[in-house]
């Protein structure tokens, strides 16, 4: 079919061949580097926040800049980085190969999704930059949640940013839609549903969420923009509207959205643990079904973000009850992964190091969720640093760590080179330490009552010392964390130049993507793939 030595990277040359490609692998790479750029930007704002909060009465940056920093940190990390990171970057790359197809079901739509993402990103960038150039515009400071009526009142470019998020939503919908159809219709002959790699289950569950939840954020943001333009009064209490309704709308998407973020991470971890234990995954059906269960249940629980927002006690009770329903499938997954380790042949390669730190961090993230799902303890913790810490343990300790692990796992497949194991593992260790320093300290900040989004903090006599020392620790950790991530990417980038050539299957994994060459040829497989062995059969 193709000459020896050609692959999807050198199959066509020139910048135009990339910009007009419909090859899912190339689109995956473009998504990957765009998301990494977003990570860098979001990280920059995160460091800005941390340096500001290093000591109590700090005035490193102005209040206005601080508010902008946490808003943009949230918006960029959520909409530009985490949501596309695993599904659109890694998922795009591996999903069609894992199902044994030549491409996703709608390749042109896939490219369109990328360009929509680019347009959305440019709009977001404009919303960040324009206030510094246009007279009368103020930096965006409504927080990534855009809660009405503050988002109606603030002078920042809320409309531009909500429209950016609206556009990015389409990108997300297109990716999800593509994945669902690809998994349903393009699986290689012989691959039944329960013979799919767990990564596919996770991506499938994610896609369901993307397709079903994203339109609701679309209409929410549209209504918010209309609220600002026309003053329609649906969310504005001054006009007889209901800001709590905005929160219902917002969280109907944004709660499932955190599962859009974490589920693909869980899929990656399933692959990693099984591969590097060289052992069949424990409880395949349980893990697969729990992915779907999480996806469905996540639609029932959004109200746990609103226990104190004048939602009625009745519905808080219902939401709290259902929230615990989502804890169970997550717990089941963790137990299954640990059980997979039992009597395995554990090889501590870099991706496995990430998988293990995922287990450690996600366990903390998941368990601390229990405090927030419980009604009475949520009263102490709601809108404090505890929530920030919990969220980062799940999103960073979960998704981003899984993303890094997956990136190392599939790097040889993407670029056909092996990175340096020593530096890879070292970076993983530094990230692990830096992360825990940054965010574990924030649990104490939150439980003692330090609210989030505070530019400076005094604290009352009882907790002033705690707040001061923990914030300082957190800032130190953030610096270490940033260094770790930098080392990781430098190591990966250096490998492009100097890395050993990767074999077809460097890890001894069982899924279909390892049966093609590294990097794969243009249409993925040199010859028609055959589904000869089930995943995880060692």
């Amino acid at each position, binding site marked *: 079919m193709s000459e020896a030595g050609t692959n999807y990277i050198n199959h066509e040359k020139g910048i135009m061949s990339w910009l007009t490609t419909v090859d899912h692998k190339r689109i995956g790479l473009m998504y990957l580097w765009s998301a990494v750029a977003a990570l860098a930007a979001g990280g920059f704002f995160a460091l800005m926040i941390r340096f500001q909060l290093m000591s109590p009465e700090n005035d490193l940056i102005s209040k206005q800049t601080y508010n902008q920093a946490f808003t943009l940190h949230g918006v960029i990390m959520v909409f530009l980085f985490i949501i596309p990171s695993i599904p659109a970057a890694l998922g795009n790359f591996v999903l069609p190969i894992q199902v044994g*197809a*030549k*491409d*996703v*079901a*709608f*390749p042109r*739509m896939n490219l369109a999704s990328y360009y929509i993402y680019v347009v959305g990103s440019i709009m977001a960038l404009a919303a960040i930059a324009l206030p510094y150039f246009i007279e009368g515009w103020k930096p965006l400071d409504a927080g990534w949640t855009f809660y009405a009526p503050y988002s109606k009142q603030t002078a920042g470019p809320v409309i531009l940013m909500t429209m950016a998020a609206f556009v990015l939503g389409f990108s997300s*919908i297109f990716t999800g*839609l*593509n994945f*669902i*159809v690809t998994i*349903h*219709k*393009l699986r290689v002959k012989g691959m039944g549903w329960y013979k799919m790699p767990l990564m596919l289950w996770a991506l499938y569950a994610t896609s369901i969420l993307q*397709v*079903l*939840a*994203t*339109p*609701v954020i*679309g*209409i*929410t943001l*549209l*209504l918010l923009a*209309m609220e600002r*333009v*026309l*003053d*329609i*009064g*649906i969310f*504005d209490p001054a*006009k*007889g*509207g*209901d800001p709590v*309704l905005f929160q*219902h*709308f917002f969280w109907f998407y944004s709660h499932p959205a955190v599962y859009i973020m974490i589920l693909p991470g869980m899929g990656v971890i399933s692959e990693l643990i099984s591969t590097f234990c060289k052992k069949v995954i424990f409880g395949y059906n349980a893990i697969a079904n729990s992915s779907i269960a999480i996806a469905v249940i996540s639609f029932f629980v959004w109200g746990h973000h609103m226990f104190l927002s004048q939602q009625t006690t009745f519905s808080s009770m219902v939401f709290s009850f259902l929230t615990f329903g989502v804890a169970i499938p997550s717990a089941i997954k963790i137990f299954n992964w640990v059980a997979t380790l039992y009597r395995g042949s554990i090889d501590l390669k870099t991706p496995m190091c990430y998988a293990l730190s995922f287990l450690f961090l996600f366990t903390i993230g998941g368990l601390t969720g229990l405090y927030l799902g419980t009604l009475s303890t949520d009263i102490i913790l709601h809108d404090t640093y505890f929530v920030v810490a919990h969220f980062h343990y799940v999103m960073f300790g979960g998704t981003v760590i899984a993303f890094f692990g997956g990136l190392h796992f599939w790097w040889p497949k993407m670029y056909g080179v092996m990175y340096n194991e020593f530096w890879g593992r070292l970076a993983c260790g530094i990230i692990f330490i830096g992360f825990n320093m940054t965010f574990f300290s924030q649990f104490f900040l939150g439980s003692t009552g330090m609210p989030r989004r505070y530019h400076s903090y005094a604290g009352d006599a009882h907790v002033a010392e705690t707040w001061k020392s923990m914030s300082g620790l957190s800032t130190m950790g953030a610096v270490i964390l940033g260094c770790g991530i930098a080392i990781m990417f430098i190591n990966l980038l250096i490998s492009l130049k100097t890395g050993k050539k990767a074999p077809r299957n460097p890890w001894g994994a069982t899924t279909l993507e390892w049966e093609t060459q590294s990097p794969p040829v243009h*249409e993925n497989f040199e010859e028609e793939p055959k589904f000869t062995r089930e995943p995880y059969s060692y």
Partner: protein
Amino acid sequence: MSSHNTAKIEVDKSQFAERNVSHHFVDADQEFDSCKMGMWLFLLTEILLFGGLFVAYVVFRTWHPETWEAGAEHLDWKMGAVNTGILIASSVTMALAIRQAQLNDKKGTVMLLLATVLLASGFLVVKYFEYTHKFHLGIFPGGDNYMFPGKHLSNEFIYFSIYYMMTGLHVLHVLFGMAGIIWVTLRAAKGEFYSAYYTPVEMVGLYWHLVDLIWIFLFPLLYLTK
């Protein structure tokens, strides 16, 4: 599932351009099924997009039923009924256009698609008169713009906010649908669609039926509130 009159139709090669299946699909059935499933998923997103507005409608209506009744007084249910009829008729012509494409009737397909566009423009014309009438009365969308001078309840504008949001979004969908129909009409005129390949007509048709579907609910909810 075998059906009555399939597979017996001869394709006139002089009239139609034969089409190949995209490279990554195994066969035409797989391609058609994939497209259709993709379209259904897309329609789901549309349903949920409008879902938000319907939720807002129900919430505010249960809170302020008297506002709803007062607001609906200003709507002309006759115009709404006419528009409902127009959209139903356009749905019929759209469905028939797909049928004619399946039957290799190029001319019929094009004519029916054009009829659909025509009916859609009729819908827009009626909507135009409705909107301008309201603007004339001072009923503009939004709390600050609402300046209807007659007697009204203090929060009546919320009814019209929701009215304008719902119908406005629906009108946008009508416009997108029309663009889609014109696009497939042009392609149909070139003879690109025939019994084995009419996927775009079918997709645009599904979209158009959804537009009709949403109006079916909007009509009683907005116009027949009394």
